[in-house]
């Protein structure tokens, strides 16, 4: 529980901080300090156990099935890092209290900072590798938010994105690596993994795992070639730089390598990958640092270099090297954090961080100058400071690399030492010389408590540097034993080991570094150089930006190749898929050759000569001769209906005929709003060969699709049916469903649930069409009155529709059409009533009824009909659906499932016995929905004419009717 609260505390603090008001700078700091102190207290409480060599674990079940429990685990190494995180965190918080401007919205800052602290503790304390990855990515995320804290600045946004992209990508690699590791070991538990080193190193997946984990660690620790994000992260407020980007987060990578040392290290691959990256980083970082003009930039590159140093040590991988690595992690955290804070003070006080401007600050900032110089000396590896000790251990280790004859590692180390002396000198040069003029702000010593963290850290550098054995030795020992276990070496943290090769190397580095600095300054214009000599082309940031840009561009390019926004290619692909995928998966039919040729009916064939001819001709005409195409397609429709009739499906024939009629009227109503396409104005600029290629391809697809469907149809038709559920329907329609027309019984009884859905579709489409037409804006070419109606030669052009029907050319047809109305109505009733036993039913009846009304619309026009008849299709729709539902629900009353049919047997005098199945009422609902739908759609379409129409002779009342249409519908 104690452990859990250690991790939870910062997150809790983060939430609290986020909820505080904008100007609560003091309260925020106190909260953060409280969290850090609290954490330290918990750490202190844990110390006895840890010091005793115990591994304290706390487990919480989360996802046991996946080997994913929430495990916290603290051993020496974790404890030391915990203290590091919390202690530096405490100082940074204190520093930030003074660094942040009163106008800054600090709640966000402290919330993010505390969240980072929690995440970092999570990384350090995770006892489960997956959980470690979680916290790992959380540190990336919080780092992103903190770098982007001043997000109105472009460099902050850019730096944040860059850092996050690189580290999160690394995190993904780490996750993959952890997965592989877990796969090898069979567990993600850290203790299990650490104990399985030999198994891992011997496994065939060792190299992938190593590479993936290394990618994670190296990106996080800003190792070459992923180092470039760190300098750009300096756009963050300085407390963030000092905390995340020097002391803690960037150490997560090397921490991980140290942590996994027992499991992964000890192979040539390890040395080459880790060590190689480290060497490059250490040299490049140190070299580039010399040529920076930004104080923080210089520190950032030096951080990179020092991280490279640590990485090299880990790569070397000997127990002593690991000791040196851990030691240097601690040392670097101390002096670099203080240096960043000093740089922050300079920035804060002078308003600039530009090395080309800053001079002579020791006059105005004497104390800060002293502190910074001492810290720089530690960074340069000057004796009696902590940096010297770990660096000398490093020199000693490099000598071991490659045996006695191989010195390259040592040369590299000395070169790095020289560079670090040079950039340290460059850093402290701001304090010397004549005081700078024209600084943005007049510098003063910072507030007492802002300097306090620096003082404390520099003191630590001194104490460790002078008396390592007393100060750091116990801590280091704790960590080393926890990491190396039995392999822990004997080592001696003393300032003086006598005259030896490492000492010589240190001296060389110091002297060479000073000389290098002087030479560069005197002869190479170090103070004003625009770019880094030799390797300025090696610009990771540029590469990153280019990569990101290319990634987007490439993705766009690729997307155009493998995707489309146009409809035709999509439909084409669907057809291609239809043609290719089924045979690819299912193969060729097993009985292909055995398919017999069946009987041939010349009359039926003649009929389909018509149907197919109409279809082909319709396809040919559809572009320019829409009406002809419509008529031709209608021809196919009639033949289809006739086919249904011929082949024992009278219900289908009736339905098809009615639908055919309604569809024709519907499309004609729509065609009125689609201006004609004139053959002569095809402005296609495409070359002919492309047009023909496309047509050829489409033709091939059409032929292929047709052939495929024909073949399938034939294959089924000549193949005897297997045992189907159809027999049940035939046998039970009359006895169970109470009707002899099995198709209708299917629709209103056996599968009435389908029918319910189907009428819902109708209602939905009607509503949608209505909604669409409410906002319909016709094409300008078709918005006016059609030319036919403007033709003065036609007497009807001077009459409104009602007059045409009353005394115009429609007088005579009108007599018939009006007389037919009651007949059509009765026929609709007839088809409705007989449906259950003979072809017919609610659907056909509904269509007949709707068409009967429609004919009246065609005859006398919308205005006249609606002034004489109020139809309210919405009510028909709603009523029909509800009726169908209520009928179905009636079954609940009889404790039966929804839509179970019941038949009431009523005996009426004179009439006789009446069977009233509930399916009948259900069918009535179908009828109502069909009428409502058809009327709503067609009438809504017809109403569009009223918008444009103002007939010359049309009078005011008619207009009033036109305005009222919306209400009535």
């Amino acid at each position, binding site marked *: 529980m104690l452990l859990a609260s250690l991790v939870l505390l910062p997150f809790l603090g983060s939430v609290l901080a986020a909820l505080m008001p904008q100007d609560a700078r003091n309260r925020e700091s106190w909260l953060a300090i409280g969290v850090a102190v609290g954490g330290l207290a918990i750490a202190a409480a844990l110390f006895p156990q840890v010091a005793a060599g115990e591994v304290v674990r706390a487990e919480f079940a989360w996802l046991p099935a996946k080997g994913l429990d929430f495990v916290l685990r603290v051993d020496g190494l974790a404890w030391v890092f915990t203290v590091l995180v919390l202690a530096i965190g405490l100082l940074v918080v204190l520093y930030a209290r003074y660094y942040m401007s009163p106008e800054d919205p600090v709640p966000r800052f402290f919330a993010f900072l505390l969240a980072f602290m929690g995440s970092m503790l999570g990384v350090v304390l995770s006892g489960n590798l997956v959980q470690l990855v979680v916290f790992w990515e959380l540190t990336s995320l919080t780092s992103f938010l903190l770098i982007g804290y001043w997000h109105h600045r472009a460099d902050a946004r850019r730096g944040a994105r860059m850092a996050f992209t690189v580290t999160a990508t690394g995190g993904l690699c780490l996750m993959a690596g952890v997965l592989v590791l877990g796969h090898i070991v069979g567990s993600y538990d850290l203790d299990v993994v650490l104990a399985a080193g030999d198994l891992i190193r011997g496994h065939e997946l060792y190299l992938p795992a190593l590479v993936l984990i290394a990618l994670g660690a190296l990106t996080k620790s800003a190792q070459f070639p992923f180092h470039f994000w760190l300098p750009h992260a300096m756009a963050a407020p300085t407390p963030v730089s000092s905390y995340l980007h020097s002391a803690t987060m960037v150490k997560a990578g090397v921490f991980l390598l140290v942590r996994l040392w027992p499991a992964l290290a000890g192979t040539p691959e390890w040395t080459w990958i880790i060590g190689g990256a480290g060497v490059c980083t250490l040299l490049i970082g140190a070299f580039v640092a010399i040529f920076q003009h930004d104080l923080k930039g210089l520190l950032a590159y030096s951080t990179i270099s020092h991280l490279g140093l640590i990485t090299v040590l880990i790569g070397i991988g000997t127990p002593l090297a690991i000791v040196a690595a851990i030691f240097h992690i601690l040392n670097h955290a101390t002096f670099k954090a203080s240096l960043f804070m000093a740089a922050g003070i300079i920035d804060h006080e002078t308003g600039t961080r530009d090395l080309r401007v800053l001079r002579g600050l020791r006059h105005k900032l004497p104390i800060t100058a002293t502190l910074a110089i001492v810290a720089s000396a530690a960074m340069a590896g000057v004796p009696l400071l902590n940096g010297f000790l770990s660096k000398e251990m490093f020199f000693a280790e490099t000598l071991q690399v490659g045996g006695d004859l191989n010195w390259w590692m040592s040369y590299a180390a000395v070169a790095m030492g020289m560079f670090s002396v040079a950039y340290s000198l460059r850093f402290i040069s701001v304090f010397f010389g004549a005081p700078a003029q024209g600084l943005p702000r007049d510098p003063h010593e910072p507030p007492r408590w802002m300097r306090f963290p620096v003082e404390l850290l520099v003191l630590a550098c001194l104490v460790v540097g002078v008396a390592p054995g007393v100060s750091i030795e116990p801590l280091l020992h704790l960590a080393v034993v926890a990491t190396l276990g039995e392999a822990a070496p004997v080592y001696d943290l003393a300032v003086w080991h006598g005259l030896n090769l490492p000492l010589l190397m240190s001296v060389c580095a110091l002297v060479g570094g000073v000389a290098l600095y002087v030479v560069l300054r005197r002869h190479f214009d170090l103070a004003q150089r625009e770019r880094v000599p030799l390797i300025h082309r090696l610009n990771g940031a540029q590469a990153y930006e280019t990569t990101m840009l290319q990634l987007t561009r490439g993705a766009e390019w690729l997307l155009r190749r493998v995707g489309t926004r146009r409809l035709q290619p999509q439909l084409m692909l669907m057809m291609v898929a239809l043609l290719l995928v089924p045979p690819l998966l299912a193969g060729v039919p097993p009985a292909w050759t055995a398919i017999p040729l069946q009987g041939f009916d010349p009359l039926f064939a003649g009929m389909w000569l018509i149907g197919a001819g109409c279809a082909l001709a319709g396809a040919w005409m559809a572009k320019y001769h829409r009406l002809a195409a419509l008529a031709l397609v209608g021809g196919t429709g009639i033949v289809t209906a006739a086919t249904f009739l011929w082949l024992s499906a009278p219900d289908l024939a009736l339905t098809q005929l009615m639908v055919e009629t309604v569809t024709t009227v519907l499309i004609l109503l729509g065609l009125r709003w689609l201006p004609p396409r004139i053959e002569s104005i095809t402005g296609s600029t495409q070359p002919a060969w492309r047009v023909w290629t496309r047509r050829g391809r489409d033709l091939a697809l059409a032929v292929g699709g047709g052939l495929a469907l024909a073949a399938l149809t034939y294959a089924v038709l000549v193949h005897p049916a297997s045992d189907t559920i159809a027999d049940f329907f035939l046998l039970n329609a009359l006895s169970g469903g109470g009707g002899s027309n099995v198709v209708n019984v299917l629709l209103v009884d056996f599968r009435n649930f389908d029918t319910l859905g189907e009428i819902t579709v109708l209602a939905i489409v009607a509503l949608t069409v209505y909604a669409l037409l409410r906002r319909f804006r016709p094409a300008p070419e078709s918005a006016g009155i059609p030319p*036919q109606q403007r*033709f003065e*030669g*036609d007497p009807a052009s001077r009459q409104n529709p009602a007059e045409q029907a009353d005394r115009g050319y429609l007088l*005579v*047809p009108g007599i*018939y059409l009006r007389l*037919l109305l009651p007949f059509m109505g009765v026929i609709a009733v007839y088809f409705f009533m007989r449906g259950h036993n003979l072809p017919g039913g609610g659907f056909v009846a509904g269509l007949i009824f709707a068409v009967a009304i429609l004919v009246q619309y065609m005859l006398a026009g919308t205005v006249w009909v609606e002034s004489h008849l109020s139809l309210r299709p919405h009510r028909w729709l709603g009523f029909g659906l509800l009726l169908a539902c209520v009928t179905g629900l009636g079954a609940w009353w009889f404790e039966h499932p929804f839509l179970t049919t019941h038949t009431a047997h009523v005996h009426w005098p004179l009439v006789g016995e009446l069977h009233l199945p509930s399916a009948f009422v259900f069918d009535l609902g179908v009828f109502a929905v069909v009428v409502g739908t058809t009327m709503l759609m067609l009438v809504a379409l017809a109403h569009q004419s009223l918008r444009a129409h103002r007939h010359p002779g049309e009078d005011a009342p008619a207009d009033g009717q036109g305005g009222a249409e919306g209400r009535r519908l």
Partner: protein
Amino acid sequence: MSGAESLPWWAAIPVALLLVLGGLITLVGTIGLARLQSFYQRIHGPAITIALGAGCILVASMLYFTVAQSRLVIHELLISVFVLMTAPVVSMLIMRAAVYRDLRAARDMDPGNDAGNS
């Protein structure tokens, strides 16, 4: 192709004759539709089909079912009535559409001259 029940000869022969006649008349009507030169001639073809071709078949049907089912089957009359009620409307409207389309086309070709309808 079974189903046609056995009818006595006295009924079968007229039914067969009516069927053949109806089929032929239907065919003649559409031959007119296909063969004649102008639309105004072609429109006269289907009138035969509708009036007499269908009529023969309807009579044949009535006769056939009345004899075959030994009861009066005359609901085919309804079809005749409906056809007679709707056919005039159809030909009137198609004819009038053709006339005014042609008039309009003539006006568009030769403005100033009001072509008469004869």
